[in-house]
Structures are given as C-alpha cells and as structure tokens.
C-alpha cells in the first residue's frame, strides 16, 4: 500500500491563480481530511469527508472547495489564491471501523502564494 499520496509536493502560485491539490489513498478509508499547517502552528482542519459524495466544512474553509466523487480521491481546490493561503497542506484518512481514531497523513504539499 502506498498509503496517502499528495501531489504536488511544492507549488508556487501568483495571487489570483487557481489550483487543485490532489490526494488519493489506497487503504479504502471512509474518512478523509484536509489540514493546513502554518509555521510554528498546529494543524487547522479545512474540510473533511465521511464518505463518497459527502463533505463538510472544518475550522478554516474560506477560500477552498473540495469534492469526494470516489472513496480514494479527495482533491482540494483553491480559487483566487491569496498570500494568506501560503501554508503546508496535509491530507489524511481514517477507516470507518477501527480500534483507534488515528489519522494517516500524507507527506504534505507546500504552497507559496506570491
């Protein structure tokens, strides 16, 4: 299993540009999440999904959109990028039924908006 795979690993955007951060997992996990991590800070939840076709907002959803058309994929869309969206983005997943509520994280996507 590859686990949680995020692409791209690095990206530089200009203000106002749009892009999609890709996330896919091969563990058949029902729950998927997008977090952002600013320097020296913890992770803030952007959006999450409890299954295909179901998404919901987290703590900091403004400026982002998500979709969940399949169990495997959970892309994060940035429309009209702003400098405040410069951050490291982490995708994570978790199975529906498990002893723990551990999230499995990808390696992150570092985004810079100039």
């Amino acid at each position, binding site marked *: 299993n590859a686990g949680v795979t995020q692409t791209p690993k690095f990206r530089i955007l200009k203000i106002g540009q749009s892009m999609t951060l890709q996330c896919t997992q091969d563990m058949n996990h029902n729950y998927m999440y997008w977090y952002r991590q600013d320097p020296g*800070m913890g992770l803030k939840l952007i959006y999450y999904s409890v299954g295909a076709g179901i998404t919901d907002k987290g703590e900091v959803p403004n400026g982002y959109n998500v979709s969940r058309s399949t169990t495997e994929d959970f892309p994060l869309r940035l429309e009209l990028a702003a400098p405040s969206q410069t951050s490291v983005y982490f995708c994570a997943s978790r199975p529906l039924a498990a002893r723990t509520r*551990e999230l499995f994280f990808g390696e992150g996507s570092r985004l810079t908006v100039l």
Partner: protein
Amino acid sequence: GESVGLHLPTLSVQEGDNSIINCAYSNSASDYFIWYKQESGKGPQFIIDIRSNMDKRQGQRVTVLLNKTVKHLSLQIAATQPGDSAVYFCAENRDDYKLSFGAGTTVTVRA
C-alpha cells in the same frame, strides 16, 4: 481559541535522559487523545493514543498520562535518542470525525 495546546513550544533534552512533553485541553467532552510526531518535511506520524476512561498507557519507550481533573495530557519518552528530535503534537477528539491539534512542542536532543 484552541482548546488543545502545549505548555512549552520548545524542549531541549540531553541524549539518554527522559523527556516530558505537556499538553492542556479545555473540552471536558473530549474522550480520546493522540500524540503525533512530525519530523522535518514529513507528515505527522502516530505515536500513541489514550481514551478518557484510562489514566495511563504505555508503548515502546513512550508513556501517555491523562489527568482529567485538570485536563492535562503528557507524553513521556524514555532514554531520548537523536531520532526523537521532532515536533510533537497532542490532538483531541470531540466527536467521532475530527481531531483538533495543539500548536506543538519542538524537541531537540543534545548529543
């Protein structure tokens, strides 16, 4: 504000000593807690978890203590090694779907 946070942003430890990393939470409804380790340039990795019906849980070289009376969580690392240098996060679960993370403690191991 955040309901999960760490007391100290940085911790310097001599190799071979024990490390204690602290975390305070404010939501008494939280029933599950996790400690994660994040190495530079990587995603967070699970270390150990504990449910609110427990006070202590041990893993390999790590122990998590939970004090619900004062809403305090700690991670103890025995015989700290250079590979333990990382940022450590505690996280709480208030419902079944979402984990909320604290700001993290950066642990540096001195040779």
